[in-house]
């Protein structure tokens, strides 16, 4: 049996066309490549410091 009120809470207002810019700015675009790169950078930085 569905609980109407609970189900209704799952529906959120849609963003409007004017909000596209804001959505893009707020989007976190970090991907695995970025993570790998930052890890390698940290590794290199650590090695340089130990030398």
């Amino acid at each position: 049996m569905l609980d109407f009120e609970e189900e209704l809470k799952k529906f959120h207002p849609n963003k409007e066309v004017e909000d596209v810019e804001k959505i893009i700015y707020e989007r976190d675009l970090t991907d695995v490549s970025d993570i790998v790169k930052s890890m390698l950078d940290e590794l290199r930085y650590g090695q340089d410091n130990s030398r």
Partner: protein
Amino acid sequence: MKCYNCGIDTGFETICPNCGMNLIINKKIAAFSNYWYNDGLERAKVRDLSGAMESLKKSLKINKENIDARNLLGLIYLEIGETVEALTEWVISKNLQPEDNLAGSYLESVQQNAGRLETINTTIKKYNQAIKYCNEKNDDLAIINLKKVLTINEHLVKAYQLLGLVYIKQENYKKAEKYLKKALNINKTDSRTLRYLKEASSKVEAVKKIKKKSENPEVKVKKEKNRTVYTTGNDTIIQPIAVKERTGLSSVVNIMIGVILGTLVVGFLVIPAINQSAKNDTANSVTKVNEQLADKEAQINDLNKQIEESNKKIEELQKNVETSADTSNTYTNLLTALNYYNAKDFENAANSITSVNTELLSTEAKAMYDSLLAQVNDEVVKIYYTQASNYFKGGDYANAINFYQKVVGINEGYDSGMALFNLARSFELSGDTENAKTYYNKVIESFGKYKIGGLSQKYLEAINAANPDNTEANVQ
């Protein structure tokens, strides 16, 4: 493939030729991203759009620059009616790869039609309004809005789902089933659609069963005090019996309750509403009056500007009139001078010609003026010089200065410098030693070899001797 360290295109190399970075990890990441893209594509082909979206999001989380995955995700968003999300993906895609990118054509197709963007926004607003109506328990208004939304954007799965949910709430399971099936045709694996559809379909089935059983003679019907119970096998359906209206005293009590409720409604709802309306009317009137005042002020400002402009035009016209009068006077003076010259009245010719404003003359008239002036000057200078000499001899140095200045003004070296010398003398004799010194110096400068030069030097020294403070400044 791009090197993740320096960003250049490395082709199929495993070591970046630019920075020497090992690209094996990079290639593995790209392959993994492509795996999820392919998975998403396969799912999209069979309209498993929810699954496709999940796969494509994974693909992009692994490699954000997987342009095909991002463009396909945008297309899927468009298919389920989420235009804003679709636009977002395509804009990001276009920014990551500006050239040779399908997202560009997708964006163009949307942006070229300004009406389409407006329609999208209208749909979104109506959908949001429908959610608000649902929260306010205005189910009928929500249904109207959602149906409007679906006529404009028949792919908006969320609108179908909400409409189905509202119909389920209203126990209109057939309609709920109808709209949810439409949503399922767009996205076959949306868990929410499936859940709602399961609920609606089960209820529709139950109603069908009840109908069949009521027609079935095996159904046992048992009438109780306030309800009728139908029993067939293990299924039991209870139907409440409509309550009969009471008569007599209960009717009077009901009427009284109705009157009290009516009064309360008027007191708490109608009168405040009327007061609010009156306040709104007053506020509107004030706003209108303010607007009218602002309009009037604007009109007054405009009129003031017009008055200023008119005044400026009047001033210009007056100036033009004055200039015209001056021009006319100038030409009259020139003609008068010409007449005097022809009549050999050189002094009056000179007087008239000095009144001519050469700036107002045409080129031809200016040439005539120059010619006449040269001729008049020759004649008039003689007259001025004679008059100046007479005044000088008579001791009227003020008039002598006046006429000598005129002579010197026309010809500074007139009568071998005598005019200049006599002017200096006139100044000295009239007590104006400063001007006297100036003109003595001029005589010394131009006619120093002659007698008047020596005399000028002598007079200058005498003046300087009388005023020793200024001696150095004045001796040349």
